């Protein structure tokens, strides 16, 4: 029995490691390229895998070109704004769609789904015009604007609520909780991991959004948009682009690690206790 368990564990680790390598190869390539010179990175004959000299010039150039503290602050505000707004609105709406019965519910929900079915590019110009008319161009509000509500998040949380047993609510109602109380004290806390997942996704998508900040804002830029400027019209300086992307990845990874430790792992251990 022991041996069999050990064998299974080893097998699982092997599979995981193989898949990890597949995941990592492009990243390793990115890292290696960031340390090469431009000709080394585009040289194909001979094919250069390891840079002959690990130059840090690319990173230096990227860091010098950008006002990092301001960019980080903007990025944090952008992410915080969108995550708070999205999670709040989505969890309320998700509960309502999942558990409450009211006229017009199905029609409204189909509108929610509707939003997801079209390519995002059609929203850019109308939303830009709206922000412009509000007089809020070039502010953090403009950055947050498209992400204030999320159809995706609403759908996600609706699924989460639908997965909870109906009897919980009945039990709560028996005890005299009205709807908002049921929601606040019982249902919402149980969907914590979905809310965290939504938070993570909103943060990542907010972070990766390039086109919108470049269009609606001039100075108030988040990190990713500033890094997008590394791409020229005709030729990209690949090592610099890689260096910039790596620097950009790091905050996200840190954020993910924090979320992981605090929430996901936290919930996992408490969920099963009697």
């Amino acid at each position, binding site marked *: 029995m022991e041996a069999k368990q050990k064998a299974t564990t080893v097998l699982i680790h092997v599979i995981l490691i193989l898949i990890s390598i597949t995941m990592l190869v492009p990243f390793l390539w990115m890292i290696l390229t960031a340390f090469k010179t431009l000709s080394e990175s585009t040289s194909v004959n001979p*094919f250069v895998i390891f840079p002959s000299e690990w130059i840090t010039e690319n990173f230096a150039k990227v860091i010098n070109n950008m006002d990092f503290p301001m960019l980080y602050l903007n990025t944090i505000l952008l992410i915080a704004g969108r995550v708070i707004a999205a999670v709040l609105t989505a969890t309320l709406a998700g509960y309502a769609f999942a558990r409450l019965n009211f006229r017009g519910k199905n029609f409204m929900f189909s509108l929610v789904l509707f*939003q997801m079915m079209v*390519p995002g590019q059609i929203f850019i110009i109308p939303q830009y015009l709206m922000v412009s008319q509000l007089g809020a161009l070039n502010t953090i509000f403009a950055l947050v604007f498209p992400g204030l*509500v999320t159809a995706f998040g609403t759908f996600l949380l609706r699924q989460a609520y639908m997965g*909870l047993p109906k009897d919980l609510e009945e039990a709560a109602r028996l005890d005299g909780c009205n709807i*908002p109380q049921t929601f606040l004290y019982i249902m919402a806390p*149980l969907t914590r991991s979905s809310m965290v997942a939504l938070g993570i996704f909103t943060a990542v998508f907010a972070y990766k959004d390039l086109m919108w900040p470049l269009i609606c804002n001039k100075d108030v830029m988040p990190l990713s948009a500033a890094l997008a400027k590394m791409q020229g019209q005709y030729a990209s300086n690949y090592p610099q682009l890689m260096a910039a992307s790596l620097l950009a990845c790091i905050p996200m990874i840190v954020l993910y690690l924090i979320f992981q430790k605090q929430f996901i792992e936290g919930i996992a251990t408490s969920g*099963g206790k009697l």
Partner: protein
Amino acid sequence: MRDLANPKKGTSQERNEFVWGWIFILPTMIGLIVLNIYPIFKTIYESFFKTGDFGRGNIFIGVENYAKLFGDAEVWQALINTFKYAIVEVPFSIVISLVLAVLLNRKMKGRAVYRTIFFLPMVAAPAAIAMVWRWLFNAEFGLLNHIFGTKINWVSNPSIAIFSIAIIGIWSIIGYNMVLFISGLQEIPGDYYEAASIDGATGIKQFWHITCPLLSPTIFFVMITRVIGGLQVFDLIYMVIDKNNPALYKTQSLVYLFYQNSFVENNKGYGSTIVVLLLAIIMIITVFQMWGQKKWVHYS
């Protein structure tokens, strides 16, 4: 639906739910209608026009755009390409990430490390990813051909280019699916598994009888969103397939065509028509899936 244990409820509960239901959904719905639904209807409206520049001088041409659409072989080819992509990306990515999520849900060494590694593709800039994969797939100088010693035209052979793009798609979306599955798995209390082990069911049996049914709402959600997302593929194709590429015709997706028409060739009316086509297709598929949910998705 009267609750027999509580005969006092009745209409006051219904009214209550009505009020609270609307209050809860109001912020989201207002936001969606203003930010998103209005532009969608504007787009549909535009599809009946030959659009002028900067929103001026639109000429109403009725269904002419649609007539052109149905006769346009390029559009139909793009539709086929899009389907090819979605058919490969969606099932593979779901299965792989489901297995990974389950494997990573148990207590094991290095779990956080693995999870972070699988999450990495999600945080990398799309431009960087496209560039790296473009090089990996390069027929002359790419790493893949270098390692396998082959000379396959991964991204310039019209028959296989779309599948190479699908591989990149799967690679980048596994992390996303995995996060969703893990969060879904968290909500399954450990007691279920304990009870099952007490009863002697282990491993794969547990997977089929406990994990899958209880996770089905999440699986359903991932499937719907991935199908919708897959059918809207654009960024990868735009960044990996150059306009000189002979495989372009057999790889461009509907959204790619839409982008070409609306933003490059300044023909927003026709671009909007393509969007409407895509919208209709996605709607049909989604309705189909929603109907299917009643059959196999298990809500407790």
